[in-house]
């Protein structure tokens, strides 16, 4: 089983530092939710963990250093659901999800029956079978987001990086998708690192929450420790009330005027 750990991760765009020395460690079967205001560096952190941007510091996947692994090896271990996925023109949902099998298809080869079976299973699991022959661009925002998640699941990676996987989903599908990921990580011991803007969901599904502000880790720990009303109002500039419940804190926005 593959855990993720990193020490002193830094990243910069055009000379501007966006991540300054992020440390984290996530064990197999554990879900870490990264929260923080817009522009804090959450997406950048996930991109660094996926190895698609150059980053300083040490990132270790299982027993291997990320920067010593080949692209295919990384892709077989780390699957990414991007915040704003590219929607290819004219590609069917089936073919799109099949892209997730890329790390297992021989370099010069084509997918086989096992790959098609795997794609079918994933589509079924995400309620997408009836969309299999439709083009991705013809799907609604939420259906499309499920297709992207399906592609990541078809990748059979032990580390899932989910960047705002529920923004386009209705409440029921948000719960459904988060429960699905929760079930998978428990049954298959996956590492899940996700960003979530909904702090209540962050508290319900994250084993731990990491608060990132301006590229620095401000707080990290169990949801109840991190998501306190004064912390949220300080760093998000929001007025909230935090209600303690047995399944975690509920972060409730409240109006100060009107």
């Amino acid at each position, binding site marked *: 089983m593959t855990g993720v750990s990193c020490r002193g991760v830094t990243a910069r765009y055009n000379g501007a530092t966006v991540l300054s020395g992020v440390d984290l460690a996530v064990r197999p079967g554990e879900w870490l939710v990264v929260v923080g205001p817009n522009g804090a560096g959450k997406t950048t952190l996930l991109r660094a963990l996926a190895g698609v941007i150059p980053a300083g510091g040490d990132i270790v996947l299982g027993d291997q250093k990320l920067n010593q692994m080949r692209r295919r090896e990384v892709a077989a271990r780390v699957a990414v659901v991007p915040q704003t996925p590219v929607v290819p023109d004219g*590609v069917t949902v089936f073919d799109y999800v099949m892209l997730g099998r*890329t*790390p297992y298809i021989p370099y010069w080869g084509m997918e086989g029956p096992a790959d098609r079976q795997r794609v079918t299973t994933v589509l079924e699991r995400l309620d997408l079978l009836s969309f299999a*022959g*439709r083009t991705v661009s013809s799907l609604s925002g939420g259906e499309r987001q499920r297709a992207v998640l399906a592609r990541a699941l078809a990748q059979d990676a032990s580390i899932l990086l989910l960047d705002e996987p529920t923004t386009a989903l209705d409440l029921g599908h948000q719960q459904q998708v988060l429960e699905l990921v929760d079930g998978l990580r428990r049954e298959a011991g996956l590492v899940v690192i996700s960003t979530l803007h909904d702090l209540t969901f962050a508290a319900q599904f994250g084993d731990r929450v990491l608060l990132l502000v301006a590229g620095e880790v401000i707080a990290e720990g169990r949801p109840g420790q991190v998501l306190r009303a004064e912390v949220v109002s300080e760093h998000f500039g929001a007025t909230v009330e935090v209600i303690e419940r047995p399944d975690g804190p509920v972060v409730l926005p409240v109006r100060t005027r009107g």
Partner: protein
Amino acid sequence: MSAATLPLGPPRPRLGPVVVSVGVLMVAAFGSLVLGPAGVDPWRAIVEVLDHIPLVSLDSGLSSQEAAIVWQIRVPRLVLAGLVGATLAGSGAAYQGVFRNPLADPYLLGVAAGAGLGATIAIVSGLPTSTIPPLAFTGAVVAVVAAFGLASLGGSRRSGATLILSGVAVAAFFTAMQTYLQQQHADTIRQVFSWILGRLGTTGWGDVRTLVPYAVVSWLVLFAYRRHLDVMAVGEEEASTLGIDPVRVRLMVVAGATLGAAAAVAVSGLIAFVGIIVPHIVRLATGPSHRVLLPVSLTGGAAFLMTADLVARTVQSGGELPIGVVTAFVGAPFFAFILATRREVSA
């Protein structure tokens, strides 16, 4: 419902477009073979071609002069048209795929400007015409290598957009040099223009023999990368999270496409439009997967250019139109018609 029993197969490779394009290709080849000013009997012309198949021996009954018209003029010319058309269309499809840009064509990174400069140098310095193809080829390859060099000045992992812009800069520079040379040697303008407008050789089998190895290598490279090109449709960053090295795929695809396009341009001049419209028309029928798009672009490009050449040499009695004029003249309205009448792809 168990997944194993679902009727859902893989989306089957659709054979329809392949069959149609091969059919059109055969009609175009047949037309090119039997039509021409010399008035050779069509049936005998076909028998004459069959006679050249190994182990087949038939008597076409053609005079030796007519036989020569068929086998030394018409057949090599239609084969050359097919090779050039296929190569330009295949390269165009590959460029469009790897840059995810519908406006990309085989001349995008400077193949046309480089070849134009090479050919102009050969013409204005009064070198023998046999030096035009090698110099045009060299110019095309130098231009694309220069575009790559320029793009990687800021680091080799630069995006496709940087490469396109570098290609634009290189092309502008080479075109300026060519225009300058042309202007300094005004007496050769006709010859330079006739090269630029494109023409299919009249040198018997020589051009075909020159082009075949480059064309075949180019097709094989592009076909080998057909699945990688499909993955590149989600953009470079996502392709790389899926285990593809986009920089390497781009390099190999551009190299393969450039090799073919440069060789085609070297023997036939700058034939416009084939590399951009044929893949688009094919894509409307086949969908975006390069597994079907690439092979059908090859057959479709061959059929298109054979037909255009047939028009070029028959429409005007007593003379030939430049092939590049015909491809644009026929191609542009046809393309406009397709775009205006196609149904918006919805499912």
